[in-house]
Structure formats: C-alpha cells, structure tokens
C-alpha cells in the first residue's frame, strides 16, 4: 500500500479528519494520531517536509491553520506526496470557495466525500481536477432529490 493514512489537525493538535487506508485497531490509530501530532507540531517553521517514522515516511505540509499529514511507504516518491496534498487542498478550495478550517469542521462529511473521489485504497483515483469536481457536484445534486428514483438517473461522467 503506498499511502497508509492521512490526518488533518489544527495547530493545537485537534484532529479534523482521519483517513486510514489499512486496517488497524483503534488503539493503534490513537497512538499514530498522538505520535504524528507531537512530531509534526514540534518541527521548526522552515524545515524539511519529510520525516522518518518507524518504517514509514511522513510527509506533511501546513496550510494556514491546518496541518496535512500523510504517512506513506518507504518506496513512495515524497515530492509526489506533497503534490497529492496540494491537489487535495485545491479540490477543497474549489468546492468550498476559499476554504478555511471552519469549513472543514462544520462540513467534515463533505471533506470526506471529496477525499473519496480523489483517493481510494491508498492510491490516487483521479488525476483530473475537473472530473473530481464534476463528480462531487453530481453526487450532491443526487442527494438533494428527496425521493430519488434510482433507475431513472444514469449519469455518464467522463
């Protein structure tokens, strides 16, 4: 698995999003969250964005008040991992319009839905920003319809 987990947390260490790409016990998850927040928050302002933790590489980046932290396997390309984080931020930004931390707090389920259109099973799912955006919009529209007739809608999305 190339990506093991993605965490978003604030500068006070409050978790805003957690996505796990492997099966882990609750205890392990809590330990990883603790370790990651401690390690990342302890870093100097202009240091390298990569760290070594056990057998994983940790790639993190700070956007405004949120830290985005990816745990990847050791053969992963760290620079590309930074690009993945950046792409996710761009998607959020497009969806919420000038996204800020509060957006992600109050609409956390939307943040998950966007992530699930971009990444899947620890890999990049869709490389085009526009396609991801369109898929999210279409899903949202589907959600709006109160009593959906499932068989009538057959969207073809390319």
């Amino acid at each position, binding site marked *: *698995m190339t990506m093991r987990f993605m965490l978003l947390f604030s500068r006070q260490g409050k*978790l805003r*999003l*957690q996505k796990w*790409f492997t*099966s*882990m*016990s609750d205890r392990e998850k*809590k330990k990883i969250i603790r370790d990651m927040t401690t390690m990342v928050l302890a870093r*100097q302002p*202009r*240091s*390298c*964005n*990569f*760290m070594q933790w056990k057998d994983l590489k940790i790639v993190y980046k700070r956007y405004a008040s949120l830290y985005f932290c990816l745990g990847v396997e050791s053969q992963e*390309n*760290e*620079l*590309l991992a*930074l*690009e993945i984080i950046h*792409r996710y931020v761009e998607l959020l930004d497009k969806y919420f319009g000038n996204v800020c931390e509060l957006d992600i*707090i*109050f*609409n*956390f*389920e*939307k943040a*998950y*839905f966007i992530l*699930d259109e971009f990444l*899947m*099973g620890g*890999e*990049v*799912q*869709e*490389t*085009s*920003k*526009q*396609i991801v955006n369109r*898929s999210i919009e*279409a*899903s*949202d529209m*589907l*959600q*709006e*319809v109160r009593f*959906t007739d*499932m*068989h009538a*809608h*057959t*969207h*073809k*999305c*390319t």
Partner: protein
Amino acid sequence: MSPSVPLQEMIRAIRSARTQCEERGVIQRECAAIRAQFRQADNGGRSHNLAKLLYVHMLGYPAHFGQMECVRMIASPRYSEKRVGYLGAMMLLDEKQDASLLITNSIKNDLSNSNQYIQSLALCTLACMGSAEMCRDLAPEIDRLLRASNSYIKKKAALCAVHIVRKVHDLGELFTKAARSLLTEKNHGVVHGAVVLITELCERNSETLERFRKTVPDLVQIMKGLVISGYSPDHDVAGISDPFLQVRILRLLRILGRNNEGASDAMNDLLAQVATNTDSTKTVGNAVLYETVLTVLDIKSESGLRVLAVNILGRFLLNNDRNIRYIAMTSLQKIVGTDHNAVQRHRGTIVDCLKDQDASVKRRALDLSLALVSASNIRSMMKELLSFLSSCPPELRSQTASGIFNAAERYAPSQRWHIDTILHVLTTAGGDVRDETVPNLIQLITNTSELHCYTVHKLYRALLSDISQQPLVQVACWCIGEYGDLLLRGECQETEPVQVTEDDVLDVLETVLQSHMSFPSTRGFALTATMKLSTRITENVDRIRSIVSIYGSCIDVELQQRAVEYNALFKKYDHMRAAVLERMPVIEKNSQGHINGETIKESQTVKVKPGEPQQPANQVCDLLDLLGGSEQPLQPSPALGSTAPPMPVSTANTVGGDLLDLLGGLEPTPITPVATVTVYEKDGVTVTLSCEKQSDSGLTVTLTASNSTESDIRGFTLQAAVPKSVQLHMKAPSGDSLPARGAAKVTQMVVLNNPNKVNLKMRLRISYTSQGSAVQDTVQIDSFPGLGQ
C-alpha cells in the same frame, strides 16, 4: 450544497464548551438523543444523526453503538442515507468487526445498481475496508465492472481490484487480462488505475511480471504522449501533463526493467528524454525527475544515462528547496556503494549540507559524508566532521562519534593524527562515545611507543583543563600512571614540554579521585595510576602511601579492595613492587573474547621448566588480580596469555618466563641455580636435590638425576616417603630414561607441605634398569639445603 443544520448546531454547541468537562456533558446528551433517534422508526433526519455520531467519533469518543445504524442506512433506498451510511461504515467498521460482514450483501447489490454514484459508493467502501472474505465474494463482480462499464466506474474498479489483490493474493490471476486491456483506454483515470493494478500484480508474482514485460513499448508510448503533448487543461499541473500518471508509469517501468536488458534498452531513450525535457523549476517537475532518476539507477541503464541521473541528483543538491536537497541525499545514499566515484564529485556540496539548519537534512548529510570518507580525503573530511560534532544536535552525536572512529581507524594517515583525532572527539563529545573506546584508545597509545611522551603531555594538559569527560579522564589517568616519568622529565620532541613537579601530577590524580564528577571506574583508574607512579617518581612515595592507605577504608568496595591490595604491595611485597608496576608491554590486537581465567590456568600447568615453582604461580594469580582486577583496559595479563592458548606447552614457558620476569624480586636468587646437594651417587647415577621454600609450610623439592656410565639407563623411577604429618605430592618426572654419558637429565618435582613444622626428612627409593639388570636403592635425606636445617 445545503448545510446540515442539526449537525452544525451540535458542532457549534460542542465547540462553545469551555472546559473538557463541559464538552463531555454536551456530547453525552447528544449521544443519548442520537441513540433514541436510532431506535425510532424511519424519520427524515437519520443521516443527520449518523453524521453527528461520526463527528463525535472523530473527537475521540466511543461510537460503536452506531455500527448497526450504518448497516441499516447502507441498505436504505435514499442516496443521502446511503452516502452517510457508507461513510460511517468506513469510519466505524473495519474487517475485525462482525458487523462488517452484514454489509456484504448491500455492497453486492449496489455494485450492480444502475446509478454510477451508488456503484461508486460501494466500490469505495470495499476498497477501504473490505475483508478477505468479502473480497473473495465480490471479486467476480469487480472483474465484470473492469470490463464493461463507463470510465468512471472502471477506474474505481481498478483500484478496488488492487485492494482485493493485496488482501487475497491468489485472486491476482483473475484480473490480469482485464488489466492488460485497460492500458489501451484514453481516459487518464482509467490508465492510471490500470498502471497501479499492473504494478501490484507484477510485484506479487514474478510470472505475471514476465508476461507484462511485453507492455513496455505501450507504456513508453503513453509516456511519450504525455511528455511531448501540448498543453492539456484537464491534467496540467504547472506545465507538466498529468504528473501523477507519469510517476506511476515510471515506477512500473522500473519494476519491469529491473534485471532485464531488453526491457531496459526499450526504455532508455524515453528516460533520457524525460530527464532532459522536464521542467525543474517547480516541485512537480522535480517529482517526475526524481522518479526518473530512481528508475534509471535501478534498471540496467547504459552508463551515459547513469551519469545523467547522478548529475540530476547533483543539481538537486544545489537546489534552494530543502526538500529537494533531502531527497537528493537519500538517493545518493542508495547508490554510494555502486557509483562511488560519481557521488564523490558532489562531496563538497554534501559536506556543506552538514551545516544546514534542518535536522532531517543534517542526518542525511552525516550518513552520506561518512560513506564518502576515503584514504584520499580523510584529512579534510575529518576536519569537517569534527566541527560538525561540536555543533550537531545531541541525537546525532553518538552516531557521529562512532562514524569518526571507524573512519579514523581505517584511513588514519599517521598514528599521531589518529591519536589526536580520538582525543579531540573525547574532549568534544566524551559522554556519547561507546564503551570500547577507552580500551581501544589505550591499546593504540601503547602500540605507538614513539609517541608516548607526546601523548602523555597532551593528556595531562587536557586533564588540567577539564575532568568531566569520563572516557578522556580514564585514558589520561592511565597514561599518566604509565608514562608519568616521561612527563616529569620535562622534555619532549613533538610538543612543548610541561615543567611539572611530582606534586603537581599527584595533585591532578587526587583531584580526579576526589571529584564528584568521576565515575567509580574512573576513580579506579586514578588510584591505580597513583600507585604506578610510586615506582616512577622518587621523592613523594610517602604521599602515595598515604593516599593508598586512606582509600583502604573507602565505601566503594572496588576502590577499597584495590587500596588494600596496593597497601599490601607496599608493606609485605615491597620487593616485588617495582616489577609488578613495570611498564606494560605492547598489547596484542586480537585479545577480544579472552578471559583472564584462562591465562591463569595456563601458567599453572607449567611443569616442564626446571626450577619453576608452582606456588609462585598462585601468587602470580594474586598479582594478576592486582593488575587485571575487573578493569578491561589493564589487559597485559590476557595479552600475555593470548599467546598461550594456541601452543600450550612451549608458549606457556614464555608466559611463565614473562611472569617470572615480572616477579623478578620474588626469591633472593631467582632462576639462577638454587643450592643443590647431591643426595645419591652410585654406579654412575647421580641424584641431586634442590629445594625452594614457598611459604611458611610449603616447600618444593626438585630432584635431578643424571647418568655418567657408558650405557643407557631405562625405567628410571623415584619414590619418596616423608614423615606422617608432612604432605607429599610428586609431580610427573620429565622422563624415565637416562642416556649415557650424561647426555640428558631427568627431573622430578616434589611438593611438600609441612604445616606442623616437624623435622623434615625424606626417604628416596631409586629404581632403574641398566644393561638388562634392575637396580634398586634407597637413600635417606635428613637435611634440605636452603632451609637452614
């Protein structure tokens, strides 16, 4: 997008709680309400409730009571409820929970739903938390979707297949054909998914890898299309067309080209093209270049391409971006073994990175610098490494110190440089060096006999300035003890000599002894050094005597034992003191794993050498304890004995001989002939006796027989009898034949113990065969020479 009002109200309420306690209260109330809602019949707000629960779960509170609700919601016909239900399943359920099996059926149904977004939910959830059973169950369905659906579903199905293959390796076979055909699609998402799937299949199974090698031309084609093509708005990132796909293709090419000439050749041109054409001003371009470099270095690329790759890494090293420098060093580390010379060219930049602010970069630079040290650059590299040591973060210190030691040992241009380097490290980072450093350094110093004067002067000066670094203090004490006379002589060739009196030197050692900073082992060193000085200085021996006797009542048992033994050396064995405290001989290098006890046994089994007493060997053991104790560094005894094991008999002689040299003052007349008395002389057979007093009651008698007749004597045996209270122990004779004309002698040792101090008499029976006839004779010995009787 319509905000979910109840959810947001709850979030607001939770956030406005001012204390942890208040927050818990709010959450408890909310959870109770949610539980109540779950129990009710279907109402419009089910998805909101579950969403609330998921938020509470993310804050870290238990939410397992929502698991069944997830299962119910997934089965709901409403899309909004399905969506949240599947999200809840991904967050609350994992394959270890029983409830996860319950959703298998729902997933199966949703996979064949006509609405692609519902299919997508099912695929996503399966790829996230599908257990092995679920995967086995649903794999055929996924395969079907891989072949016949739209590109939106195909790309998701591909990644779902990746997950299935990871969970159940055997199912890889199922997807091979579909994966192959997906490569030909136009849609980037699908191609990306296909590449990931093929990568996974190839990594798991080498046969599959062989089969997929045929796809290399296709991959090269796709890659070329991406690199050369014009601006494509859909996939462009800062001028690079679909970097995610490019990197994945490069990685697959790496796997396919590894260890395979043909495949490597096919991708050579492409790699060169990517390496030269990719714009490296932004991170994204560098990501692609990085992957290219990794691929080039891993496959069987031609040398020109390899040089190009290493040069790219060299350029990365000069990049302003810290991240890029970091990954450059990581990659160079991997190839420093194989392409050493290429990496050496960038040594300057790497060494500069040692001064970087960032801890990760420093660590990488240290690893790489240590790997680049060689005989030609040792002096300059060591300068850099030593300055790094003085300013490096504490967690890197011990690694740096051991790296420096290793490098110094392998490439030291001169002994003096080597010693200087080690001393420098001990002064800077003495607390972080490994335990073997002290004995290793001592051994090095001993072996460099021409630098003894220089070394002791340097260490003395170091000790004057700072006694806190324990390894340095230990070595310094040892040196001063050994070579203190060189220090006092006041002349030195290599360095400025110190004008120091005996009192000054003793002052320094006493300071170490009394300092609270000194470890117990360090104080042991200092005490022994003080003792050794008693033979090297002339005037202040009394001071040493008083120091030693003070420590005879020290609380530290180790120090006390030493002091008591040294005291004994002053009082009872003063005649031995000079020999015991003589300068150490050169220490053998491979005395590792050698135990003190072995050498003692060896010296005890020495019988052959005439005139060699057994008792002194016991005292030798005592003395060996004095010299060796529990200290590793005082290695002369093991060293001396290290020659013993391979050739026990003859070398033991040397061992015994050396020990006897040390014990030079043991008896008034050492190995020189002891008083002998002829006790039997008849028919050309002479037996002489010599004896040595070992202790108050112990006595060793040596009988020597010789034959002056014209014929050989065979079967020569001696038997002895003594008064009842005396204990007798006869050792094996050296032989039992006496050749004619005194060509050789036979000796036999007899050990007597006379605890009651009775009048010592011995009756000796001599038997032998000469010229075919047996002879037997008895003689009584009433007086023993050297006993004063």
